[in-house]
């Protein structure tokens, strides 16, 4: 058994009929208690399938998975790990007939079609594009169209999360707005588009996230049969990171609590990182009033005393709440300063090498940035690879369109489907061959120059290449090429199949075989799986509508090209090699619920540490439950400034609460783009440093 504190034991071993609300900073051992509580429940003979593990986001379940997936777990089914979104969707599917008519669906007798973010985006694009082009909607905003669609969807989701009618989105946003009056009409436009979309959904049995949520909270949750089903299925609740969840989730749990045998609600006081995604710490805190006991955990199991000192000093500096006390902070931070960005990355790598050489396990090191661009991720990972240090990266916000693996698959798909009339240029073929055949670009280009006929979309055989060039290409590569070429020819001659079937087949029969690009390339396998999944979901959402004459595969490719479904994000939230240096955006790390001994903070001068994402058609705070709706209440600059300070201090204290020993802020005079950066975080560091000097 782990080395647990008395308080933790008390929580873990509390009676099977207890509802506890446990609060404390990160690093005080809450999640450990949660994991051990499940183990305890199972050991006490509680059936696993009566336990519900709820978190706001799936990444937060990571610490639990080892237990839940261990082969020697108890009999009696499995613990259900869920998010409210997943739960709601399941209920909507299961009890569709109870809700369809009441919710206003035009064809309640037909089955529901669940939309993913991207299929919702697809429908939104169809509805809104004509309004932009023909009726001058959104004229005063400067924004890519796909971002218009996603922000309207976002508005609908926020209305559902907070629990106000979607018809009030425009007026709510408008009432808090001041400034250039020319901007005001965009909210009316956004409202009209939201209405249109909702109407379209009701007419076609489409359920996007917002509608699923509304159907559940307004109808199903009040249906006795549904309620019985849920309360009878789940008797024990572990609810971790309740502070990050959305308001309506808290509402449901609040009403559910009395019916449960036991509940353990874990709440991080200083967190609240998902506010901009609708997370509502206030309504989360309200759950404490509905539990029998509130337990506070204060002692950090993670951070050294100096790290705690540093956390306090930084918070004071950020919030301007008094004299910054820098005492003891020297050992908790070490600056890496260079003139140019690449130099800085070199020094970071050298430092990591030193740490690893001194026996620090790579998984105790994280490299964090406010925003991890492809270029930055590439630059770091390349350096780490050169230094032979294992690394992993989570990229929750990267479009599939930009992934070489998915590009490869789609290029090959175009070759197998000449009827699409998609003619990839030679350049794409070379890249696809490079990736698919696991070779270098030079040889891939050599082949594609010879074998590819762009007009008839055909690859000729390896035998037709002259022997001298064959030798340059190498016969081993030629063999792989021939396998792929023959396979594509065969598919062209056979019955057409859905695109996702095709890709699965291509992957299984060719690309995942030894020697090929996807063989044991876990990263690419994940990309391929995401792509197939996305196409499948697209097909499932479209097929029931019986769009005659539309080749869904082709339609998908066009949408992808247009960027309409570029909102499709990789779900690479679980990494296979956990014993590696993590390279991630700061918030992603926070949402993984785990500490690390050493943290590298890249580009502390960047504004990305404190500023929220700019979205002209929506507003995370005005469309939140805590927004004060007094007439005349505006979202002012003071709100913005206060919010930035709060965001930054939450972020830094959250990171430091997950830091055992030391942080390395890594700064270059010039950012990657060659510009000087001096955001709020850097200034706070500067104050701490100045006081260090003064104290010395």
């Amino acid at each position, binding site marked *: 058994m782990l080395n647990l504190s008395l308080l933790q034991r008390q929580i873990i071993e509390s009676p099977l009929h207890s509802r506890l609300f446990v609060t404390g900073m990160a690093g005080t051992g809450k999640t450990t208690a949660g994991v051990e509580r499940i183990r305890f429940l199972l050991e006490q003979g509680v059936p696993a399938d009566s336990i519900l593990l709820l978190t706001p986001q799936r990444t937060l379940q990571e610490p639990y998975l080892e237990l839940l997936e261990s082969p020697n777990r108890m009999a009696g089914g499995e613990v259900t790990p869920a998010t409210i979104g997943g739960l709601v969707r399941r209920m909507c599917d299961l009890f569709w007939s109870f809700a369809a008519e009441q919710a206003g669906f035009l064809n309640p007798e037909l089955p529901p079609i669940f939309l993913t973010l991207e299929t919702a985006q697809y429908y939104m694009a169809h509805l809104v594009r004509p309004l932009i082009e023909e009726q001058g909607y*959104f*004229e*005063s*905003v*400067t*924004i*890519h169209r796909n*971002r218009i669609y996603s922000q309207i969807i976002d508005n609908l989701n926020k209305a559902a999360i907070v629990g106000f009618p979607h018809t009030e989105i425009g007026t709510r946003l408008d009432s808090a707005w*001041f*400034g*250039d009056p*020319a*901007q005001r009409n*965009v909210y009316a436009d956004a409202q009209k588009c939201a209405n249109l979309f909702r109407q379209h959904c009701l007419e076609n049995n489409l359920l996007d996230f917002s509608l699923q949520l509304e159907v559940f909270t307004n109808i199903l949750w009040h249906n006795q049969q549904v309620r019985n089903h849920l309360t009878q299925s789940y008797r024990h609740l572990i609810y971790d990171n309740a502070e990050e969840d959305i308001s309506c989730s808290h509402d449901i749990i609040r009403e559910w609590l009395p019916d449960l045998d036991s509940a353990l609600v874990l709440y991080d006081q200083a967190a609240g990182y998902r506010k901009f995604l609708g997370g509502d710490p206030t309504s989360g805190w309200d759950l404490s009033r509905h539990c029998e006991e509130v337990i506070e955990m204060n002692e950090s199991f993670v951070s050294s005393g100096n790290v705690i000192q540093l956390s306090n000093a930084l918070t004071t500096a950020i919030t*301007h709440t008094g004299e910054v006390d820098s005492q003891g902070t020297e050992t908790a931070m070490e600056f890496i300063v260079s003139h*140019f*960005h*690449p130099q800085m990355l070199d020094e970071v790598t050298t430092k990591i090498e030193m740490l690893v050489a001194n026996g620090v396990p790579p998984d105790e090191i994280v490299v964090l940035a406010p925003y991890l*661009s*492809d*270029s930055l991720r*590439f*630059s770091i990972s*390349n350096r780490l690879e*050169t230094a032979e240090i294992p690394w992993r990266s989570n990229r929750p916000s990267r479009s599939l369109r*930009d992934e*070489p693996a998915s590009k490869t698959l789609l290029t090959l798909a175009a070759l197998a489907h000449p009827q699409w009339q998609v003619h990839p*240029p030679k*350049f794409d073929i070379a*890249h696809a061959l490079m990736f698919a055949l696991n*070779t*270098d*670009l*030079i*040889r891939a*280009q*050599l082949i594609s120059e010879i074998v590819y006929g762009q007009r008839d979309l055909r690859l000729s055989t390896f035998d037709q290449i002259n022997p001298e060039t064959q030798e*340059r290409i*190498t016969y081993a590569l030629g063999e792989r090429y021939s396998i792929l070429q023959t396979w594509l020819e065969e598919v062209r001659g056979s019955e057409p199949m859905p695109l996702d079937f095709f890709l699965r087949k291509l992957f299984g029969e060719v690309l995942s075989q030894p020697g090929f690009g996807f063989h044991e390339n876990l990263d690419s396998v994940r990309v391929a799986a995401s792509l197939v999944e996305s196409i499948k979901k697209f097909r499932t959402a479209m097929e029931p509508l019986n769009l005659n004459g539309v080749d869904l595969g082709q339609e998908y490719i066009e949408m992808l*090209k247009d960027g309409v479904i570029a909102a499709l994000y990789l779900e690479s939230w679980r990494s296979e090699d956990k014993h590696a240096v993590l390279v991630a955006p700061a918030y992603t790390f926070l949402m993984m619920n785990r500490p690390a001994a050493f943290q590298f903070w890249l580009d502390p001068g960047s*504004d990305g540490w404190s*500023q929220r*994402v*700019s*979205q*002209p058609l929506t507003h995370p705070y005005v469309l939140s439950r805590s927004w004060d709706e007094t007439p005349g209440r505006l979202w*002012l*600059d*003071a709100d*913005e*400034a206060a919010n930035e300070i709060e965001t930054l201090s939450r972020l830094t204290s959250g990171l430091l609460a997950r830091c055992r020993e030391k942080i390395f802020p890594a700064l270059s005079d*010039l950012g*990657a*783009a*060659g*510009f000087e950066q*001096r955001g709020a975080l*850097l*200034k706070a560091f*500067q104050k701490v440093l100045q006081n260090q000097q003064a104290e010395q």
Partner: protein
Amino acid sequence: MTPAFTPRPSQEQILRYTGGRLGIAAVPGAGKTHILSALAAKLIQEGRLGDDQEILIVTLVNSAVDNFETRIKRFFDNPLQALYKYRVRTLHGLAHDIVREKPASVGLDERFSIIDEREAGFIRRESVNAWLASHSLDDYLDPALDNSKRDWVKRQQLPDLLDSLALAFIRSAKDRLLTPEKLRQQLDASFSPLPLAELGYAIYADYQRALAYRGAVDFDDLIRLALTLLENDNEFRERLQYRYPFILEDEAQDSSKTQERILSLLSGGEYGNWVRVGDPNQAIFETFTTASPELLRAFIRENPSVDMPESGRSQPSVLALANHLIDWVMNSHPDPNVRTALSTPYIVPVPENDPQQNPPDNPEGIKFISTKYTPEQELEAVAKSIKGFVDSFADFPIEEQPTIAVLVPRNQRGVEMVNALRQRDIEPIELISSTSETRAAAGALSHLLSYLSEPGNARKLAKAYEVWRRDWREKGVENSEVESGKLEGNYSTTQLLNYSTALLRRMANVENFIAPQNANEWLSILSESEPVQVIEELTQFRVNVQRWLNAVTLPIDQLILTLAQDVFSSVSDLALANKLALVLRSAADDHADWRLPELTAELAVIAKNERRFIGFSDDDSGFDPEKHRGRVVVTTMHKAKGLEWDRVYMMSVNNYDFPSNMPNDRFISEKWFIRGGLDLAAESLAQLTALESTSEYDWYEEGAATMRSRLDYVKERLRLLYVGITRAKRDLIVTWNTGRQGEATPSLAMSELMGWIEGE
């Protein structure tokens, strides 16, 4: 204050500044940057800044940003003392900072991009063509034109004319904070027909829609949106006012009304701490802006002010000539309306104890050539003179060779001059549009991309290698052996570079070097015959190439940034690479079918300077004439601002390029095919003004704006002449030509100065 800086009397006065507004009229070469740096350092040292406060230094071009940074740091023993205590920005950079803090408030998305002037030009051109396809401008064409000529004009002339009209109109509308929607409302409410304003509106609206579709704004939008934000968001403005308790503005004569308004708001209005330094006599504009030297003059008049008349740049005779030009314009110009073009202070030489002494007086150094040249003869004559001059010092050590420039009024003339020099085996340095640094950096990246799009090409690989070692090569030109000591073995870096390049170029199969298989590895075969350090050098290079090839799958902007991080180290190159990355990314977004080869071609176009590439400022990065001793720089007079040379040639000083509003003067903006010789751009702006005005006396009267525009042009050209003259440290040679039609005469100012010199 470090003792190295000995302030001149006027500078001492400026350093006594502690707060409030201060206007400073400085003459050419008065050391504006120096005094502003000293003032910033002084304010910091006196502890006038609170927590999170910075001195904001606003300047014209990016190159000046670096200049300030270096100079300010010199005033501090420990650079930490000045860390984050000041911020140097161009006006566009400042506007970007402001907008970047709250993009959503002005309708911008997180990922808004900024398009450069070239892309803006493309988009505008499309809007112009769309307008021409569905409208006619026949009402404005000269009715005397016969049909065939009329067709030719429509095809060949109107697109360009409308384009420049649209540019002026859109810029002006943005300067007035008029969005297309607001403009539409005003047009709908107008009683009188304003066809040119309607035309301008239509193109503007179309242009703006195209920008929105790309999620992009142009440079003028940045300024407009920053001002909109400051005017609408009081709290935000106050927050910024606190952040910037002092604003020091350089080159203030070039600020437009909107830009002036931004700084005025930031400085907290009338009682704010705002120091403006500039020279109203050097207010020259290449394209239409609403800037006017009157803005700075008014500021100087209405607030406490200091003159900075001392300049150590030119020899006394050049100063006397420039002063005489001021004198003549102010008191004797035949058109009294242009007498405000120039103003005092006169330039005075520096005092005797000054570290930068004026060159010794030499009246012989100034030559006005009265010969009546045709344009071709003028080129010949100047080229011949330069050839003789260059030959005369060819044997001197480089540090004793003079700096030389040829100043021309327009780009096209510069191109002709460059060719004329080349015919005499003189390779000039062109400063005509984008600077050589831009081209060098863009060229370097373009070579790398070119290789990456054809990685099996040995020739391109060799070129990529040269790019990778460009530092060696650049240093190699001036002192080729300096670095050799750092290497083991006997090769100098230049030799190593040349040798390795040759090896790479001769390589048969590149894959055996970059991605060797089996026994064919090129390097190990090579190592049997070649020296160790060559092998080491190539091995090191290979690591880089392999990394680049891995990066090929990145989106283009990130690929470029990745490459740039490997091959560039200088601030300006990195900044430039970023700009190029943005330009290419938006090109890639707009052309979904473009791949690396197409993008490389686009970059090559930028690199070859066929099309103009402009970054955040009007100029790219700093040009230092001192680094080009003994060479001949060819530049427009506009681009020469802020620079100085030992010998300056000024060409084409005739009454076409430098008119005086005399009856026989012709004006470039008045087209022969437009009825009544109307200046359509000026007329369209007048219609815009009439639209905005609420006064019933402010109606639009056709032709009046054309006349006013003549005056503005004449005045600007006088200042241009003044700028040209004051570029010369020792020698000044002025020539003129008879123009394309053969009927041009020497400009009135030239005749006046020539007569004055003879009388002296």
